[in-house]
């Protein structure tokens, strides 16, 4: 049975998506909707915006992100997410591992198609 592209994406997201969330916070703290819009723009990383929140909750539980409440110009206070030092270190680690991994996958796939 050949898995569908959507099923493959779901599998591939598992290892990488949490780090993509960390990456969106590299430049500074952001609120949930803002991150969700960013990651769901192309529909590859996030299927629905809501699936971001269990991941954020887990990242917070694992000490990789921190949250603060900030008054919003419009509407109720917003929860902002920011990288902790551990989160930043984990992101650096993942980035280096990912570069090796994706290069190896690229090489393997290209070699196969040749």
């Amino acid at each position, binding site marked *: 049975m050949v898995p569908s592209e959507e099923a493959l994406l779901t599998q591939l997201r*598992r290892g990488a998506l949490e780090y993509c969330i960390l990456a969106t916070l590299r430049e500074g703290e952001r*609120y*949930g*909707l803002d991150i*969700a819009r960013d990651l*769901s723009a192309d529909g590859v990383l996030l*299927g*629905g*915006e*809501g*699936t971001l*929140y*269990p*991941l*954020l*909750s*887990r990242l*917070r*539980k694992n000490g990789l992100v921190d949250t603060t409440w900030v008054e*919003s110009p*419009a*509407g*109720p206070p*917003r*929860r902002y997410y920011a990288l902790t030092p551990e989160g930043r270190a984990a992101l650096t680690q993942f980035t280096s591992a990912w570069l090796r991994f994706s290069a190896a996958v690229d090489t393997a796939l290209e070699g196969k198609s040749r």
Partner: protein
Amino acid sequence: MNAVADRFQAYLDDLARMLADLDPAERADVLDAVRGHLDDAVAELGHEPSAAEADAILLALGRPADIAAGAFDGARPRPVAPPVYVAPPRRPVLTGLWVPILVAVFLAAGVLAILVLPGILWLVGIVLLLASPLWTRSDKVIGVLCALAVVGLGLGGTIATISANVSAGSAAAGDPAPAPVETGGSFGFSGALIGVLGLATVAGLVWVLVRGLRAAMRR
């Protein structure tokens, strides 16, 4: 707005229900975040959303089931603790089958406690009996009483034998023997007493042996 608020609330209620089995803190965290997302989406519009706009917001958010699946997906493969080597429980000291057997034999040896070696064995038997966790406190009391009775019977028997020999010797020397009826009566009474005491003692020793063996086999 009421219809939109109701729709949002129904969405959150569905999500809350689907997250019912999640860790309560994580559940509250996810629900708060999704509620905040809806608030922000409405605030972003700058006006009260129409029904179509509310639908678009919920559509972008995705089905509650997908959010719940994401929450449980991460919760399922909990970090597995590395297998910890657990040493098999060590059998407590003095609980082997040999303990009740030695105790019974050594206590029985008390019948010859007048001699040095059986006396020492008898003492060892009592120490084993008191030290081993195989017996309850009342078992131990019975055991010690039996052990004392064994020594008493042994000493009594020895003295009786010696005195019988002495009186037999003096009778042979021509001294007047004690009245036969009196002797017979006293011997009959004390003999019966010794017999009953002896039987009770043997029964007590068997009891201690059986209780000890049973306790040892249960471990």
